């Protein structure tokens, strides 16, 4: 059906394997390790129900007697052994981390997606239309930049609490969190896309499309968008790490997801209460997971930025 069927060029996979990016990935030890760690955590989180020994948030599977088990030691009352120990309610820390990473990653991906869609749309419109539309959108972005994003997320969170009836607050908390982080992060996408759009729109291939009377929406989406996505991908990767940290920060401050659906940030908040009473594992393991996740995703983003920058080759 498509034109590509006629070509004798190698398949998509083979070409992807031979591309400069793949080569650079295979030859960068940092990227390989960071990629492996990210992938491991993402897969473990995605398949949490299959991997976790038990569902830590199903009260019927919990036994309070299992509480405060130290890692790898049999519990004093029940004799059960937990790899990473249990918390005060007898929840397996390993299982809570898997389920918590799931929520952290979901919030992170969804927030980045929201910020990306908003930012790309604003950037494309501002860059392509120019004039007062550009001026208005960029002034809004400037104002937004003057607020620290955590403060903005707190503000959005507070406003949402006022609107949502108490009965729905727990269910809605995760969505409010996504909107709060997403709305506070769109500016950088918008700026980068706007700049790239202004360069692309003056190129002759865009003029060739204008010449035949192609619709502006088609020119922007089919011609310009694919050519401005490169830098967006880099910001999105680093943005994912930042969104995960922002989610953890908000949850740690107690305005994030409720304890019934704890993310890594919530687990850290719960765990820090037990640090000085000797149950260090409740805090330590979620913290290490968060650190490993944010660091590896961030390193991947750094690598991608360098790999896509022809001047650094």
């Amino acid at each position, binding site marked *: 059906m498509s034109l590509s069927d006629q070509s004798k060029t190698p398949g998509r996979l083979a070409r992807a394997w031979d591309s400069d990016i793949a080569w650079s990935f295979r030859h960068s030890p940092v990227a390989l390790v960071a990629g492996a760690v990210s992938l491991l955590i993402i897969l473990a989180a995605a398949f949490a129900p299959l991997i976790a020994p038990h569902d830590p948030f199903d009260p019927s599977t919990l036994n309070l007697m299992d509480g405060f088990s130290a890692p790898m030691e049999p519990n004093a009352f029940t004799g059960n052994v937990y790899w990473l120990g249990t918390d005060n309610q007898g929840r397996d820390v390993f299982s809570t981390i898997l389920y918590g990473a799931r929520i952290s990653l979901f919030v992170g991906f969804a927030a980045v997606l929201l910020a990306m869609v908003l930012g790309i749309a604003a950037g494309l419109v501002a860059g392509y239309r120019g004039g007062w539309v550009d001026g208005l959108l960029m002034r809004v972005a400037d104002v937004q930049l003057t607020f620290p994003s955590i403060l903005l997320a707190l503000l959005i969170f507070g406003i949402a609490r006022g609107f949502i009836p108490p009965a729905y607050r727990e269910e809605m908390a995760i969505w409010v969190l996504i909107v709060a982080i997403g709305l506070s992060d769109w500016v950088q996408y918008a700026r980068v896309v706007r700049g790239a759009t202004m360069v692309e729109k003056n190129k002759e291939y865009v003029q060739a499309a204008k010449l035949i*009377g192609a619709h502006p929406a088609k020119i922007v989406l089919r011609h310009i968008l694919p050519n401005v996505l490169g830098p967006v991908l880099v910001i999105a990767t680093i943005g994912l790490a930042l969104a995960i940290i922002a989610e953890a920060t908000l949850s740690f401050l107690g305005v994030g997801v409720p304890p019934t659906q704890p993310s890594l940030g919530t687990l850290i908040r719960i765990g820090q209460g037990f640090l000085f009473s000797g149950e260090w594992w409740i805090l330590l393991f979620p913290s290490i997971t968060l650190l490993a996740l944010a660091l590896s995703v961030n390193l991947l983003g750094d690598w991608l930025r360098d790999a896509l920058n022809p001047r650094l080759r």
Partner: protein
Amino acid sequence: MADTVLQVAGLTRYFDVSKPWLNRVLEREERQFLTAVDDASFEIERGETFALVGESGSGKSTIAKMIVGLLAPSRGTIAFDGEPMHIQQGAAMRNLRRRFQMIFQDPFASLNPRWRVGEIIAEPIRTFGIASGAEVEREVARLLEVVGLSATDAGKFPHEFSGGQRQRIAIARALSSKPEFIVCDEPTSALDVSVQAQILNLMRDLQDEFGLTYLLISHDLSVVRHMANRIGVLYLGRLVEIADSKRLFTDPQHPYTRMLLDAVPDLALSGRRRTPVTGEIPNPINPPSGCAFHPRCPHVMERCKREIPLSRPTATGTAACHLLEDAPVA
């Protein structure tokens, strides 16, 4: 000749190059306008190649962009086959657009790097609804062969081709909407000399095969000599001379045309002394009074500084110079 394809009358375009409003108020400056094209009039006959030559900044590309509708004229009219452009809308404009196309200067910027060649060439076909379904692919394959590429190249990306091959792809795209008139904006200036001739010959062959009319924009006099039937010489946005190609090179009327021809490097080593072009093209924001060429003209008279010369018929075409009114240039 009666069969005029394109008629340009009094075409003028200025650009607002003023500083922002606040700066103007604080620095007490007036609005500034750059006149890129000033009162240009010419006609192009069906099947001919009309060339516009001039130095950088003389307004060649601005004229090309106005003709294809990428820029709106500030004044003046452009009529395509008797139908005035820029006031047409909807289906009429669509119909008109299909009949002209453009080949761009830089084959590295004129093809979308993320699109396959087949998609690039098919875009005008789909936009104008000339063909659909499998027919589009067949048409793309045919066009690729017409411009000397292989039908299997449709699945490749532009970066897999050389500059000359890319320009062939750009020509295939221009041909895909079956146009009658093609604006070629310096089609070979980004190419190697060895490839330039191939592309120019391809363009001539296609002209004969499809009965195309070309408007060729160039600063390269050897390209123009090879391709054009008639030539218009632009200086600072004004057409100073229009003449038949052969006569222009043997018998230039306007002092500026003469100066341009004298500056051409002589590869035949005939021993002719090459006279470099003296001076630079003046700032178009603040052009010289009277004839814009007077600061550089070897035959400058008092009158040239006051009066803008009008275009008048000469033995070879038309030219705008006060000298030509009384006696031929010595």
